[in-house]
């Protein structure tokens, strides 16, 4: 009597799958980030390429090492470590030393993600955790910016200030805005400013973001509510005192707002699940970003505000539960 004849497969319904998998989504994100990568290398030359490569590969390597060491299934092929690595690189100054890039990737993968149990369990955006830890630990290196030198790959770095830090310094010293923050700096669209490796070219980021929206990897809720809140709030201040507060276009294009709104705040794991939750989350991000940029002692508030709203995500998910279809308004959840 032999029991090994081929059997029919029985599985629970549904028996179809959309085909969109975790690795597929991560691959799409990487594709969307590529234009910004090219722009970064074009603007900042070889050092930027070095930072990008170190971050991506060390993030992947860290993930493999950690999962091997803790005896878990190695899931580096899902691409999430590579995405994290890329985003870490995007959040570093383009001329960061190699060890900073390495440390950043390590922090993101280990402290940001794996200690919580890996993909899907981290409460905070790993790349931002790494950025903030580095910013607090190495304030000088992390605020040492170089000016973009388009197409000059081997040029020596020229120190420059980011538009936001320049604004902060000038406002603190003189009480009014510097030259560059009073107009509508459309030059920033193409990346003609100093800043983190990946945040400088709003156009390249927007291009990738449209791709992500089209592929439905991210939904419109967070970017729209985030950017909308920033625009409304900054317009409000600008109307009150245009000589003291910069216009909304400056807010949108300078600093990491585009990167934050489309790629960091929309991080699937650390943002709310429901549409309403995402809207609230985006509004919170926008509010804190403007407050910190205008009144805080840090020139840039995107990273902090997203981390803060990450912390609020469990509460948002808990209290903004959608009303089931057909349940009365008064009924609520039993």
């Amino acid at each position, binding site marked *: *009597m032999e*029991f090994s004849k081929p*059997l*029919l*497969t*029985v*599985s*629970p319904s549904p028996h179809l799958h959309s085909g969109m998998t975790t690795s597929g989504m991560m691959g799409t994100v990487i594709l969307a980030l590529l234009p910004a990568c090219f722009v970064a290398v074009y603007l900042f030359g070889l050092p930027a390429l070095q930072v990008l490569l170190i971050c991506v590969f060390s993030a992947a390597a860290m993930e493999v090492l950690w999962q091997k060491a803790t005896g878990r299934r190695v899931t580096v092929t899902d691409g999430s470590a590579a995405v994290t690595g890329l985003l870490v690189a995007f959040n570093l100054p383009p001329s960061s030393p190699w060890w900073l890039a390495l440390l950043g990737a390590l922090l993101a993968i280990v402290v940001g993600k794996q200690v919580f149990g890996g993909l899907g369990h981290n409460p905070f955006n790993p790349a931002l955790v790494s950025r903030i830890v580095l910013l607090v630990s190495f304030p000088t290196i992390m605020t040492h910016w170089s000016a973009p030198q388009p197409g000059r790959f081997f040029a020596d770095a020229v120190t420059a200030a980011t538009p936001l830090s320049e604004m902060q310094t000038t406002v603190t010293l003189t009480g009014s805005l510097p030259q560059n923050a009073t107009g509508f700096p459309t030059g920033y669209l193409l990346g003609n400013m100093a800043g983190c490796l990946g945040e400088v070219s709003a156009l390249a980021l927007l291009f990738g973001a449209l791709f992500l929206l089209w592929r439905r990897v991210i939904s419109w809720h967070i970017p729209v509510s985030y950017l909308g809140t920033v625009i409304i709030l900054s317009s409000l201040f600008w109307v009150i005192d245009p000589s003291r507060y910069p216009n909304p276009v400056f807010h949108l294009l300078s600093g990491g707002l585009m990167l934050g709104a489309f790629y960091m705040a929309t991080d699937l794991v650390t943002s709310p699940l429901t549409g309403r939750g995402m809207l609230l989350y985006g509004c919170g991000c926008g509010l804190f970003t403007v407050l910190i940029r205008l009144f805080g002692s840090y020139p840039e508030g995107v990273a902090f505000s997203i981390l803060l709203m990450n912390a609020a995500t469990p509460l948002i998910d808990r209290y903004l539960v959608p009303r089931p279809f057909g349940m009365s308004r008064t009924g609520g959840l039993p």
Partner: protein
Amino acid sequence: MLAAVISLGSLGCFAAILLAMAARRFAVKVDPRQAALLDVLAGANCGACGYPGCSAYARALVAGTARPDLCRPGGPETLARIATILDIEVAPGEPQIAVVRCRGDRQQSRAKYDYQGLEDCRAAQKLAFGPKTCPGGCLGLGSCVQHCPFGALSINEQGLAEVDRDRCTGCGLCVSVCPRQVLALAPAGSHIHVQCNSPDAGRKVKNYCHVGCIGCRLCIKTAPECFVMEGFLAKVNYGHQKPTAMADAMERCPHHCIQDLAEPGEAAPHSPSVEERTS
């Protein structure tokens, strides 16, 4: 110095009066036995007693609405202490242990279909009543392992559940979790068990399992009263065990479903106390 003493003294007096008044106004009575009970309960919050956690059970005990012998992980020792606290008399029950009543692993028994889905027996049982042809066989997807609060269960390489006799406290949680009642509680002192749970007649069992009970009654003929039939399935009569006769029956069982689960180091396949009480 004097000012300090006076001011702090009067402040203290004032506070004392305030507190005294509040204590009277907001007095709450609590039975001190409840705290004492909570201390002696096992503290695993396993829920085997049927209450959501140890403190709920303690409250029910004090209220007199719960039986005192429900804390299985605590065993007779806890029972005795509960009895002391509540000042009641109880007879200690026999400690129990979970037994896996199936030996039909992948080689020995027929699979009904290829299962794809959650690693959970109860979910799999809902798909065409489980991926094994035998309606009583262990599915080996580990629902019991996930639920055991003491880490006493595991799924072995052949895809069958296994009980670690040292860790099992006989709380019975796995018994209630298993969708096919493969796991059952038996006296911890007994070592010989019928390791089959198939309700089907022998003709059917032979068709899907090499090690299932076929209801041949050979064990009952060899060791009368030590075994009983329930439908087509032989069971050990735990209240009436004779080790030698049972060992004989074990030898003669054509499908080897009567098994001695004693650890290699352990002595007799039964405890003398069982013998004493039954004789």
